[in-house]
C-alpha cells in the first residue's frame, strides 16, 4: 500500500489509546475525520500549571507525516510559547528552515519519524519549562522572567478555569 496520512494517523491513534503517556489523551474529534484531533493535557506536577486539564486541537496536513500538524489550545492560555490565539509555537512543530522563531540548532525539529506522542510530550515539557528566548507571547515571556509570582498566579487562575472553577 502506498504511504498515506490516514493509515499513519489511525496507527498513531491506536497506539495512543492502547498505551497512553501519563497526563495525555488525544484522538480524532470525529471518526469521520482523522485529520482533526482533540488533545487533553494535564498540567505537569510541581509546576504552576499543575492540576489543570488543558484542551487543544491538532490539525494535520494532507501530507502528514512528511509535514507536521498545527496545534492550538482551545482554552485560555498565558505562556511564553503560546500565541494569544492559542497557537503553540515550539520547534518540533516546524521543519528546519521553517523558522518563525529562530530556534536553536539543537532544538528538536519535525521529521517523518516524529509522532503526535512526541509532540504532546514536548508540549508538556514546554508547560513545565517555558523557553523565554522565543517569545510567541512577549508579555508572558517578560512576566515569566521578571515577575514569576504574578505569572504563577495567572497560571493558577487558568488552571481553575479549565476545571470549571471560577473562583
Amino acid at each position: 500500500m502506498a504511504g498515506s496520512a490516514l493509515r499513519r494517523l489511525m496507527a498513531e491513534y491506536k497506539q495512543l489509546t492502547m498505551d497512553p503517556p501519563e497526563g495525555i489523551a488525544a484522538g480524532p474529534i470525529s471518526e469521520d475525520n482523522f485529520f482533526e484531533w482533540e488533545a487533553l493535557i494535564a498540567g505537569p506536577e510541581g509546576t504552576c500549571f499543575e492540576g489543570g486539564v488543558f484542551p487543544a486541537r491538532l490539525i494535520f496536513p494532507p501530507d502528514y507525516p512528511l509535514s507536521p500538524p498545527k496545534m492550538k489550545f482551545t482554552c485560555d492560555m498565558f505562556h511564553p510559547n503560546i500565541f494569544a490565539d492559542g497557537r503553540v509555537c515550539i520547534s518540533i512543530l516546524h521543519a528546519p528552515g521553517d523558522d518563525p522563531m529562530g530556534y536553536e540548532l539543537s532544538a528538536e525539529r519535525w521529521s517523518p519519524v516524529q509522532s503526535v506522542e512526541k509532540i504532546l510530550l514536548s508540549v508538556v515539557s514546554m508547560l513545565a519549562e517555558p523557553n523565554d528566548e522565543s517569545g510567541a507571547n512577549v508579555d508572558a515571556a517578560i512576566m515569566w522572567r521578571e515577575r514569576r509570582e504574578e505569572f504563577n498566579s495567572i497560571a493558577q487562575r487558568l488552571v481553575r478555569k479549565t476545571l470549571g472553577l471560577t473562583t
Partner: protein
Amino acid sequence: MESIDHNDSNRDEMIMQQQREIEKEISESTPLVSELMPLTCLGAEYNGDDVFTAKIQDLSKKYKFIRRTRPDGNCFFRAFAYSYLEYLITNNSAYQEFQKLAESSKNKLVELGFPSFTLEDFHETFMEVIKRVCPDNPAGPDEVKNELHKIFNEQGYSDYVVVYLRLITSGKLQEDADFYQHFIEGDYSIEEFRHQEVEPMYKESDHIHIIALCTALGVGVKVEYLDRGEGGTVKAHDFPEGSESKVYLIYRPGHYDILYPN
C-alpha cells in the same frame, strides 16, 4: 511594543506560507520523475550561453538521455532510488542482494535508535516498491520499468521511498559519526546535522548525504557537474571514490537529474 512583535511574527509566518505556496506551485508543475528525454534538450535552457553549450556538447558524447526529477529538495534521493531500482530490474543477483540488505535495514535503524513504530510504515512501503520491480516478473523488463515509472510518480510511494533513504543516510552518519564529523561545516554536531539537514523532507542533499547513502547501500554513483567552471568539459565525481558506477546523475547548481550512459 509587544503587540507589534506579535504582528511581526504573524506576518513573517504569512510571508513564509506564501513563499512555500509559490515554490509548491512551481515544483508541482514538474512530474516527480519525467519520461526519458534526449540529453540535447538541456541545450534549450542555455541558449546563447557558450560555457554551458560547450559542456552539454561534451556531455552528449557520453550520455544520450536524461530523466528529470521534480526540484523539491528531494531530487537526489528520488533520482538515486529510481536509477538504482531501474538498474536492478535487469541485474537479478544484485536485486536479490539489495532486497536482503533492505529487509534487514529496519532492524539496524532500530538498533541505532530510530523509533520502530514510526519507521515501520516507511520500511513496509519501501519493501513493497522493491517487490513490485522484481526482475523475475514474467511480463518482462520493459513492463517492470513501466511499473517503476508509475510507482515513482505516485506521491504516496515516491515520497515514502525518499523518507526511507533519508533515514538510511541518517543512520549511516550516526553509525560512522567520527568519520562524517570531518565533513560538516560550522557548529553542527552530527546529531544536529542529521535532524536538521537529512531526516526532514525537502532538505537538499550535499556530498555528505551522497557519500553516506552510497556507502550504506554499497552502490557506486557517478555525478557529472554541469556548472560555470572552466575547461569546457564536465567534471565527474565517483561516490564512493574508486567505485564502479551503477547510478549516473547530473548536477546543476541546486538540482540532480538522472543520466543514461551510451
